[in-house]
């Protein structure tokens, strides 16, 4: 819940000061001093309390928490991956969790050890009251969130090239800014993971013409996924739409 310090009325996100500044119903990371606003405005802008007095939970609030983590330096750049990112391009299917691909900011301690740990992230969220886990996800504002640190060159490229989008889930709540992986990276990551549901998602991208085939072809070549792609095409019985075999 948002609170207000006595000496300075600044937006405090879920009990801790944040460098976030909500403006005009949108929430985008701003690395500047928060503007002074009153407690009622804080509650309204942060979306924690509905006009009826009921606490709001949902994807917008989940993304606001993650955006605050980025603004507070707990995580580096992040982007939505998995099924929720696929919603940006294809017909949605129900999913259990929100996949967040993320990087960490280089710190003096970490540059020495090169060890990546999610402990500070979980400690930060625990301090804000988010400590319930469901399967592999941590529940944040009603959505189980799975934090996936960058673990390959493909992940790193996908995160670097993720596109910034503004999502408006409903008019009353306003919009929230976030990043979404590009369609070609989502397909390549699905191919690498290779569960049946991932392969179904690839076929959806192809069927709905939601992927740039020449960009995908280049991506598969660059990340050594050509053979896996051909195996996928053989398995589902389609002619290779990327024409990888014909390439020199």
């Amino acid at each position, binding site marked *: 819940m948002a609170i207000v310090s006595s000496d300075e009325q600044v937006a405090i996100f879920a009990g801790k000061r944040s460098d976030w500044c909500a403006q005009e119903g949108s929430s985008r990371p701003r690395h500047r001093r928060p503007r002074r606003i009153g407690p009622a405005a804080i509650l309204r802008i942060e979306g924690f309390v509905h006009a009826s007095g009921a606490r709001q939970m949902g994807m917008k609030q989940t993304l606001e928490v993650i955006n605050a983590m980025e603004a507070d330096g707990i995580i580096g750049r992040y982007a939505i991956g998995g099924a929720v990112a696929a919603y940006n391009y294809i*017909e949605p299917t129900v999913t259990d969790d929100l996949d967040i691909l993320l990087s960490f900011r280089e710190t003096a301690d970490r540059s020495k050890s090169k060890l990546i740990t999610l402990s500070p992230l979980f400690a930060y969220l625990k301090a804000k009251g988010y400590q319930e886990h469901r399967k592999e996800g941590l529940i944040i504002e009603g959505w189980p969130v799975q934090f996936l640190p960058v673990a390959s060159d493909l992940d790193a490229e996908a995160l670097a090239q993720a596109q910034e989008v503004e999502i408006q889930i409903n008019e009353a709540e306003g919009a929230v800014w976030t990043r979404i992986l590009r369609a070609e990276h989502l397909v390549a990551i699905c191919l690498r993971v290779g569960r049946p549901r991932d392969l179904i998602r690839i076929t959806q991208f192809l069927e709905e013409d939601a992927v740039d085939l020449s960009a995908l072809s280049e991506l598969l070549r660059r990340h050594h996924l050509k053979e896996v792609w051909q195996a996928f095409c053989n398995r589902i019985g389609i002619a290779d739409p990327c024409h990888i075999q014909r390439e020199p």
Partner: protein
Amino acid sequence: MSQIIYPDVSNILARKKEGRREISRRSLGEKIAMVEAMRERLAPLKRIREERRANQKSAALNLSNKAAPSSS
């Protein structure tokens, strides 16, 4: 021997396909709102499924405990 005549459902399938395409064209926010509503509707079914799985798991565990020879 009578021959079964099945109805032509190609129109229905075409309409369903167009419906899926229409949903695909919606904005990300609209799709998320759809899924959040769907999750709410499915929550009771999911809870029942999880309870059933937990019961099956505990029943299987009880069976294997009974089948295992005692260590004493």
